[in-house]
């Protein structure tokens, strides 16, 4: 057998995760996040919890012990595992929810974090530029799917200062361009005002 060693690339085509700071906002690629989707079967009762976390209702998310669960559609959820991007996460989810249909999603999505280092306001200002949603519906604990520059994205509001964005892996560069352009512009505005 020839010795073949393969090294994975991130969604943005680099060996290492890209991270860039614009004023108060840092944008970081998160290749270590594993993703799987969970769908309840029509002939099975509604699942209640996975990995000890209660499955959230419409527009909500729950997070704990490195696992995040996002409501994606009626009787469907997205499950994120921190630091498990290079493991068979879908099998772990299947073992934890045997009555449900589980689909591997890590290879289909890119995860990018937006973090503010100066309170909630810079993140709020940036989100208002990016998505057409009522800011009150993007409070911590909210998660929803919407459009960002014509791309379908999940927005996951972990806290006042942090939101994660999941989008199609094949358009990761377009998402990065949209986020960095908006964040750069917002940082420039803040500088001019100050």
């Amino acid at each position: 057998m020839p010795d073949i060693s393969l090294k994975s690339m991130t969604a943005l085509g680099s060996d290492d995760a890209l991270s860039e700071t614009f004023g108060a906002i840092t944008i970081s690629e998160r290749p270590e996040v594993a993703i799987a989707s969970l769908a309840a079967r029509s002939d099975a009762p509604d699942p209640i919890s996975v990995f000890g976390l209660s499955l959230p209702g419409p527009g909500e998310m729950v997070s704990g012990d490195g696992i995040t669960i996002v409501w994606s559609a009626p009787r469907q959820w997205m499950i994120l595992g921190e630091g498990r991007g290079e493991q068979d996460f879908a099998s772990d989810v299947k073992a934890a929810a045997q009555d449900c249909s589980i689909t591997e999603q890590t290879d289909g999505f890119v995860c990018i974090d937006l973090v503010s280092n100066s309170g909630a306001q810079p993140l709020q200002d940036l989100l208002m530029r990016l998505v057409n949603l009522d800011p009150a519906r993007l409070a911590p604990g909210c998660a929803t799917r919407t459009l960002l520059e014509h791309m379908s994205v999940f927005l996951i509001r972990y806290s006042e200062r942090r939101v994660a964005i999941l989008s199609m892996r094949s358009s990761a560069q377009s998402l990065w361009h949209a986020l960095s352009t908006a964040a750069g512009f917002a940082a420039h505005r803040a500088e001019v005002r100050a």
Partner: protein
Amino acid sequence: MLIPHPLLGPRDAEEFTYMGDASLIARPSASDPGAEQAFSDYVYLRDNPAGVHRELWFHEAGDRSWIVVTRNTLTHEILDAQLARDVALASAAEAGE
């Protein structure tokens, strides 16, 4: 235009795709007598009201729900929005009674 999603609250119409008249939910049965005429009507005949209209919207860039929206086509006022699944189940239950 904002569409009041029954689960997710008001959402921009850009997230939705218009999928036609809500009467499309009532698909005729192929085994009934007169199915040919019923399917011809189902496929080709539509009301085109200037006023209150029941229509199907698909939340394509959201949770992928199909929604029955009751809308006034003259004013764009939205009078009601329900999950199409609930509407179909309710009419099936009514027919079964």
